[in-house]
């Protein structure tokens, strides 16, 4: 059965100066989460940035629910339903936790501040802390909340577990799974293979600005050679 | 878009070349006028231009049967810009005579420049630094008017004897023209027996004088204020607001029409202020009445009476035209005849006196002690208290002794 089409990327190209950072990216996804894996420097973050409109696309198209949003500036893409959790979390350092939430608060959102606080009691405790005075895990919760409150149809998350302690990584993974239950699409960029394998069913492998393969999570999980080849990870059990 | 712009630029340059180099040179005399048309002094400069134009309007732009062409250049109060303007007038526009400039340092700069251009005659506009003609003068630089010291003639004596001020504090801008004005005031005042315990030299463009206001000692009888434009407005307002109640004695530009026509309430503070000036807005003389009527008719957008700048540029223009008339337009031989005529030229000024030059080519002038008053229509002007005729550059002192006092400065003269 065909998935309803949430995101479709067609022949997306991005250049940085003379280097061809993203080359003819084609991705199509429905409500089932997808993860992009790849080594450092392969263009994963650039892809996220191009999808939310912060990096200029040289050519190609991006469709969200079959609407072409390629020419939209970032703010319109956000309004069209793309939520963004950037790499490094990018907190506003002069805003408190509460102000972060107030910034994006709207009437009739599925995610009012009360609900956010009930999911993340930690944030409620820290609501007057400044954005840069939070632990990595707290920042991540806030970054996710900030994106959630916009009622996104699709969340683009760039390395949400980067630099987090293992127990927190588990929490975040839980959260990613619960997003799916809320009917929010998820495009996840990860270094952490196990998080990616757990949160997503389909894995896109990115090498040198190209998507070179799309595999099922289970296939990759059981295939150390593939891990080794694409991701440079060598472990023997 | 870009190439269009280039075309326009190129066309402009070509056009400029043609405009500036007329193909057929007619028999006409070219006169350049330099005045300040930008920045803080623009209002004064504009009135200077009106004055010069008035002189030419009177003769229908003709002298000795020849057409007179006027070319105006703007400076920005800096000596550098005055020199550039003059060079362009001389070398590009090939003018025969230059009228201007407006301010003191520009005057000294043009005096120095004039030495290198023997084929051009310079007639000073309204600049009034003493040294322009008094020290190291130039043969082809003429001033049909006085310097800032001459303009203060009579005020020192009047203040001491008539008003009975024994001690006066000075507040003046910190450059050569106010130095000269203070010299003019003090040379008489100190001689009469008055004392000047404090001189406050403030940088030009000072906005907030409040600390000066409070530094003025309580035991002085009056304050001599030689500030121009916005500086005068600011000082007087702040002095009044701080409850200051000493009488004011004004420098020439402090009570000039350009200030009296300013917009705002502060002018009332000036009523009754005595001052020294060669230009009295409401002078009760036949010549002045004609002059100001003609000014008002020609320039409906002008000031309510000709300012000191209009007056002096007018006299410069008039001197040039009269001189040309006398030599029948002959400017040959490096304008030798023309200059000889100028040196001996005498004419009746708008204030009814006779303008003539001393051996330094500086005017021997009539100066006035005036006071500011409110006219019936609510505008302000000044009127004569005392007339001092025939003031020369040494203010009646022996020339050698006067020169020996040295150039004016912050500390010269002094009588604490």
């Amino acid at each position, binding site marked *: 059965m065909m998935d309803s089409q949430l995101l479709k990327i067609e022949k997306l190209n991005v250049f940085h100066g003379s280097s061809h950072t993203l080359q003819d990216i084609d991705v199509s996804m429905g409500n089932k989460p997808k993860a992009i894996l790849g080594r450092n420097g392969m263009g994963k973050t650039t892809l996220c940035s191009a999808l*939310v*409109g*912060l990096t200029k696309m040289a050519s190609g198209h991006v469709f969200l629910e079959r609407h072409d949003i390629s020419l939209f*500036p*970032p*703010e319109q*893409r*956000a309004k069209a339903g793309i939520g*963004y959790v*950037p790499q490094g979390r*990018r907190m*506003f*350092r*002069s*805003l408190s936790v509460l102000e972060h939430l*107030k*910034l*994006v608060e709207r009437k009739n959102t599925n995610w009012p501040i009360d609900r956010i606080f009930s999911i993340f009691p930690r944030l409620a405790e820290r609501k007057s802390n400044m*954005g840069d005075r939070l632990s990595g895990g707290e920042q991540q919760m806030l970054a996710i909340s*900030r994106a959630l409150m*916009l009622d996104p149809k699709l969340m683009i998350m760039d390395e949400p577990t980067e630099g987090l302690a293992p127990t927190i990584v588990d929490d975040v993974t839980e959260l990613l799974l619960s997003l799916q239950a809320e009917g929010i699409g998820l495009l996840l960029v990860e270094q952490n293979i196990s998080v990616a394998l757990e949160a997503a069913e389909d894995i896109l492998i990115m090498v040198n600005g190209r998507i070179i393969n799309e595999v099922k999570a289970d296939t990759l999980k059981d295939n150390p050679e593939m891990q080794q080849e694409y991701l440079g990870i060598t472990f023997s059990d | 878009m870009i190439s269009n712009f280039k075309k326009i630029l190129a066309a402009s340059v070509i056009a400029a070349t043609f405009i500036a180099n007329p193909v057929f040179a007619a028999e006409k005399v070219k006169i350049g006028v330099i005045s300040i048309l*930008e*920045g*803080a*002094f*623009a*209002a*004064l*400069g*504009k009135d200077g231009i009106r004055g010069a134009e008035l002189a030419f309007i009177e003769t229908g732009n003709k002298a000795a049967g020849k057409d007179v062409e006027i070319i105006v250049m703007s400076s920005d109060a800096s000596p550098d810009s005055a020199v550039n303007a003059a060079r362009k007038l001389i070398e590009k526009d090939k003018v025969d005579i230059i009228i201007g400039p407006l301010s003191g340092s520009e005057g000294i700069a043009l005096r120095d420049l004039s030495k290198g251009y023997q084929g051009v005659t310079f007639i000073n506009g309204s600049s009034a630094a003493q040294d322009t003609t008094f020290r190291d003068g130039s043969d082809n630089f003429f001033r049909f008017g006085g310097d800032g010291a001459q303009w203060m003639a009579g005020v020192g004596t009047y203040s001491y004897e008539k008003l009975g001020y024994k001690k006066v504090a000075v507040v003046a801008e*910190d450059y050569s023209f106010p130095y000269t004005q203070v010299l003019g005031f003090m040379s008489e005042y100190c001689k009469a027996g008055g004392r000047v315990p404090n001189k406050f*030299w*403030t*940088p030009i*463009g*000072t906005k*907030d*004088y*409040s*600390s*000066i206001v*409070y530094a003025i000692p309580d035991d002085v009888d009056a304050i001599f204020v030689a500030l121009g*434009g*916005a500086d005068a*407005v*600011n000082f007087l*307002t*702040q002095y*009044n*607001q*701080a*409850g200051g109640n000493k009488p004011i004695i004004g420098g020439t530009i402090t009570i000039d029409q*350009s*200030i009296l*026509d*300013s*917009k*705002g*309430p*502060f002018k009332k503070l000036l009523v009754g202020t005595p001052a020294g000036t060669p230009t009295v807005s409401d002078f009760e003389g036949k010549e002045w009445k004609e002059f100001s009527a003609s000014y008002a008719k020609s320039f409906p957008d002008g000031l309510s009476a000709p300012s000191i700048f209009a007056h002096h540029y007018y006299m410069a223009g008039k001197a040039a035209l009269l001189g040309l008339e006398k030599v029948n337009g002959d400017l040959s031989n490096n304008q030798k005849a023309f200059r000889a005529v100028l040196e001996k030229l005498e004419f009746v000024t708008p204030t009814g006196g006779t303008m003539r030059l001393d051996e330094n080519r500086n005017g021997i002038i009539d100066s006035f002690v005036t006071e500011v008053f409110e006219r019936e229509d609510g505008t302000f002007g000044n009127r004569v208290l005392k007339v001092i005729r025939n003031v020369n550059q040494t203010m009646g002192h022996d020339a050698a002794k006067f020169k020996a006092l040295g150039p004016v400065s912050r500390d010269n003269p002094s009588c604490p």
Partner: protein
Amino acid sequence: MKFFFIVFFNGLTLAALYFIAACGFTLIFGLMRTVNMAHGALLLLGAYVGYEVVEITGLWTVGIIAGGLTSAIVGAAIQAYILGRYQGDELRQTLITIAISIIMADLMLWAWGGLTYQISLPEMLLGGVRLPILNVGYSSVRLTLMAMAAVTGILLWLLIAKTKLGIIIRAGVDDREMLQALGFETKKIFVIVFAIGGMLTGMAGVITGSALSIAPGTDMQFLLSSLVVVIVGGMGSIGGAALGALLIGMAEQYGLAYAPTYGVVFTFVIMIAVLAIRPQGLLGRSEK
């Protein structure tokens, strides 16, 4: 000694005026990193319009609103139609605003001539009062300046610290891209900020024209003073602007009182000293 305290008071009141004049400038720089060299021209424009309106209506408050609105509209138009396209290109924006300030100054000279203007104050602010203790007369309008500066500072602080717009502005200062990615149209926000900055600047112009006077050249004077104040204090910080204004106001008045010859040089020496040691200004945050 008494004189020393009076000068202190003068420094305080002058600082109040400098602070009011610099608020719009620092606000615009703070969010947009735009060094608005047309700041002085906007101030002068507000003052001239304020003068005309006060002459017609006789109401000072109406004049101040009219002056503020005019500069707000002109400022917003400059940002919307010219500057907005070059966001992030600091040098180009600086040059564009220099060009605009040259044009505006010349057009204002055309419209209002070169004479000095003073805006009539309301009756209650005219004249002076006697200060207790020091026992000298002091101008009412200067005392009011301090209140105005306090009100301006507090309102601006409230705007930035307590309102949604303030949150958006601060977020924009921290990370403009992220703000966009959260659905905010920063272009529009920048126009609003420029309008608010212009409004403050125009109102400051009317206040300046009433407390002192205005004439061609006032634009450059207040551009320079605002630059110095904001740079010394730290660009984009309200507290910094207040501190900078205080330092510069004091330096100028003590300089004028005790060393008038080089008083104005002090101001710039302070600025050089501060920048050499703390390039971002006293309370400024360093750019990453």
